[in-house]
């Protein structure tokens, strides 16, 4: 991978982000539905439930990214451009998710009308709140966690789901989608980190937001079994 060489602060930020990611990744082993998924004990109803719960966050995902973009002033117009293109790329992700749900035997009306679980409420509320602040550079931390999870879905979960179930058409297009362009996304994230991690305060803000998003995302997954 042709990575941009990061500044010293950028590198220290990336080291901390990696640590937050690995802590989060490990903590997912304690989430019951993820244990069942990774240990080959997922039922079809479980998978439908997982998609249904993810959809409510994904559909709101495009909103916080768009709002995040609009909160950057002219001093961050380059960051704004990157975030806008990111929002454009992903704002219709939820359609893939809905198609997977239907392909896995679910009813479209059901996934479209389901409410957010309480973890999703908290996650979405936090992301919209941060995105509404002026120049919300800390949301790079949120993108890091969500991008990391997208990659985990693509390289691990999708395979495990396809090992467990066989359908005529793919039920994992949403998860697989994240494998495409993955290298570009990483490069983009590295560049964003290099651009905004230019003070200790900014690094601390990015890490804090990454930690909060990781915690709330885990709560969202914990809640899949509770609704």
């Amino acid at each position: 991978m042709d990575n941009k060489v990061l500044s010293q602060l950028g590198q220290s930020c990336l080291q901390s982000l990696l640590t937050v990611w690995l802590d989060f990744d490990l903590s997912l082993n304690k989430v019951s539905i993820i244990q069942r998924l990774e240990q080959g004990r997922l039922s079809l109803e479980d998978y439908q439930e997982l998609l249904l719960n993810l959809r409510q966050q994904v559909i709101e995902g495009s909103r916080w990214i768009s709002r995040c973009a609009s909160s950057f002033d002219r001093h961050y117009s380059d960051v704004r451009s990157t975030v806008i293109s990111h929002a454009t790329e992903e704002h219709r992700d939820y359609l893939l998710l809905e198609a997977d749900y239907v392909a896995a035997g679910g009813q479209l009306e059901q996934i479209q009308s389901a409410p957010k679980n309480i973890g999703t409420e908290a996650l979405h509320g936090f992301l919209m709140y941060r995105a509404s602040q002026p120049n919300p550079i800390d949301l790079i931390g949120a993108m890091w966690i969500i991008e990391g999870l997208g990659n985990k879905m693509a390289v691990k979960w999708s395979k495990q789901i396809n090992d467990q179930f066989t359908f005529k058409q793919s039920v994992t297009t949403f998860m697989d989608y994240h494998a495409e362009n993955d290298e570009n996304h990483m490069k983009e994230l590295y560049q964003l980190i290099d651009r905004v991690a230019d003070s200790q305060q900014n690094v601390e803000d990015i890490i804090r937001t990454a930690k909060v998003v990781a915690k709330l995302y885990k709560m969202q997954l914990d809640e899949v079994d509770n609704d």
Partner: protein
Amino acid sequence: MDVYINSTGHYLPGKAINNDEIENVLGLIYGKKSRLKNKILKSNGILHRHYAINDKQQTEISNSQMAAKAGINCIENSYLSPSKIQMLSCATSQGDMVLPGFGSMVQAELDISAVELHTSHGICSSSMMALKTAFNNVRCQDSENALVIASELTSRLFKNSRYEQLDSNEVDFNAEFLRWMLSDGAGALLLENKPRATGKSLKIDWIKSFSHANTLPVCMSVGQAKSECNKTWQDYSSYAEAEKAGALLLRQDVRLLDNIVSIGVQGFLKLIAQEHVTPNKIDHVLCHFSSKYFKSKIFDMLETAGAAISEEKWYTNLYQRGNTGCASIFIMLDEFINTHNLKAGETIFCMVPESGRFNCAYMHLTVVG
């Protein structure tokens, strides 16, 4: 009190066995060549190893005898008389006897008197646990020295006859995997509270470990049959029944194996953040790791984050001496010291990940003298 590694030693039983000879020693399961063997060997890269059993699957030397030989080799490289040894700290994943502790049997083989004794039980990282206990013992001035020995004789678990006891007649991948990974051997280190009189010593700066058994399932085990959740080997009415059910086979849940990379890197980043280690100040890395992991994405990220250690600093003898479980890191350190012209001030970073239920141990050494 500073603590120094003043001598090292090792023992590898018999002649080196190459990949084509493995089944001559371990035996053919139901008389058939394994279909998995080459695939697993290609992935772990091991070319030679040693076994304490012969081609009739008879034990030529016991685990405690191997440990004692490594211990004697270590003492003979030092300035210390065996009678002056104050502590013996031993590690193995399975002694010859179920009880008493491995250390007792090794002490008897070594014939050293009235030592303070410690045995640590576990898998690959148990040697680091034994070392840490000895390090602390010398550090807090309870002992002036300590002999630390790690030894493994896993080949007894890999005899063809073990697999042929199964009721199901079918050896699954997870039960066969380690047959092509692990082999026998022992390594020893002598710790003292002062540097060696001549030549080089390694000052132990720190030893730390992070265990994740509460978060992750069992990944490498003996004692439970495939798809059994609660029942373990002693819960069967006879040991013969446990063996028939496959509860006595050494298993690796390969699906979980990737977690070892995550926890290894996570601990490393934690040590950097706590300022115990600075990646660009490390001169040598000795890691009990299969090289295929270095190609993974997370190592690319470490490089981008400025936390990678360049490839020429990594040393291993895994491919020539085999993966000897907990003994590996001591056998590696012994050969490393004897084949490198170390200079005072150079630093060595050691890392021992254990997949049993996910523990990773780290050590930082500085060359003195």
